[in-house]
């Protein structure tokens, strides 16, 4: 069996989640949600998943998460709970972005275009970017217009903001711990710049460099990606029997 791009991304994210952590996915977040459900089935049975913040430990993937489908949650909360848990902090928050930059800052608000803007949808929960212990970034587009050197608008700050580090800004917690794209897994270096730890798509390094908005180095990393039969079997048989990630 060959895993699809979205299945590979879900597997990579699942491996970054730990048992007994509390994680929150956004509303339209099939890949992180699949990752969470896979982690609960394998190595993190005590993981608590706040689906769209309110659907606690969803039992299944659904075509659209906040659109009337029943995700079979263990419990249901509301937005006052989400407000409280945002203030209190959790372990992991997932973010995507119209733009994601070298330091892991994300932009969901607006992109400059000539004298005007291209408007984004906006972002509901920005605070978990620093009240969560760490964030996990993902995008389904590994291309220069998404992976930019510096975002046009900082919706959630990554490892640097206007030249200052998270520590200098007084931001607690880790910030972006990894970025998963359709081609690569990236982690921040000591300076907070995202570098490629793993290429999981088979893309040529020159091609990947060309599609990344910052310098990712001359040579690819040696690490190889392998997905186990067990991971793919659980993903397809238990987590995603409808094949939404395929």
């Amino acid at each position, binding site marked *: 069996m060959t895993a699809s791009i979205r299945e590979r991304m879900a597997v990579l994210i699942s491996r970054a989640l730990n048992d007994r952590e509390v994680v929150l996915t956004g*509303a339209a977040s099939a890949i992180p949600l699949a990752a969470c459900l896979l982690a609960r089935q394998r190595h993190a049975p005590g993981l608590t998943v706040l689906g769209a913040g309110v659907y606690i430990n969803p039992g299944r993937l659904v075509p659209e*998460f906040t659109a009337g489908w*029943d995700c079979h949650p263990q419990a249901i909360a509301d937005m*006052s709970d989400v407000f409280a848990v945002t*203030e209190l902090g959790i372990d992991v928050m997932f973010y995507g972005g119209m733009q994601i930059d070298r330091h892991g800052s994300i932009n969901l608000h607006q992109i400059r275009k000539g004298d005007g803007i291209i*408007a984004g949808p906006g*972002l509901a929960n920005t605070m978990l970017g*620093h009240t969560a212990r760490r964030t996990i970034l993902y995008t389904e587009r590994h291309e220069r217009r998404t992976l930019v050197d510096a975002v046009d608008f900082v*919706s959630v700050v990554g490892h640097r903001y206007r030249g200052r580090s998270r520590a200098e800004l007084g931001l607690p917690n880790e910030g972006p711990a990894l970025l998963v794209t359709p081609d690569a897994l990236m982690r921040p270096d000591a300076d907070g710049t995202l570098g490629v730890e793993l290429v999981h798509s088979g893309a040529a390094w020159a091609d990947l460099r060309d599609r990344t908005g910052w310098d990712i180095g001359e040579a690819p990393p040696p690490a190889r990606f392998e997905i186990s039969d067990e991971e793919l079997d659980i993903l397809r048989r238990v987590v995603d029997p409808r094949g939404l990630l395929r």
Partner: protein
Amino acid sequence: MAQETSLAAFAQSVGDVTSVALGGMLLENRPSALVRALIRSGRGGLFVTSAPAGSWDIDVLIAAGLVKTVRVPHVSFAVAGTAPATKAAKENGSVAFDPVDEALLLGGYLAASAEADIQLLDNLGVSDFASENPLLIKVGDHQGVGPLRVDLALLHAQYGDAEGNLVHVGSRWADLLIARAAKRVVAQVDKIVPARVTAKLGVTVPGYLVDEIVETPLGAHPTGSVGAYVADLAHLAEYQAAVKAGSFSSYADRYITPDHDAYVAELGTARHAALSAEAQS
């Protein structure tokens, strides 16, 4: 105690409302039938707010030219794509969009429900959104947001009773917070049931917060109603295409001008059955 009403009576009673909060979240539990009635009322110049994520309901009010200001952090059709009128209004500046995230929005509802001058928000951090945000109030070493009160709240729930008690099958999202912050609350429900049934199911918004209730089967369409029907992604695509092509008036003639019975009939029983089957899968 709530009064049972009709969509026509609601449209005639909108009056001089200037601010509206819409219940539900993203593509779920949006009070779409009431939004269509609000558009038929012709009331414009509206301040529109919601739970932290809105979709078709906010977009169609913008497309109809009835919105002056939006205070909603995220507006999209989720996997179905862009909210076309909202995107265009942001880009051409025809509608004002308050710079809020979830905490600033919900903090406003919390301050209103507590009759407080401020809800503290000391964890906003730094970003282009949070830095020097005009909605922030500074009090000594602290910061926060003032109360967000609205003239009118429109909610959708799966069940309700004649007393106005509501039952949400999925999350009630911010509906309770919104109801506490509104002068007038009008709720649409898929089905009105006896009070003994709502009590047994578990009331999620108490009737003393609800002024009027109306039964609207398929009333959240084209968004979903948990357990009853899912969002109609094909209809949302049809709406997006109409707005992008500059033919919103044709969409409105077909889907907004008619009353709710005609709207449901226009959709057809086969589509209704398919959306319901998905919700119950």
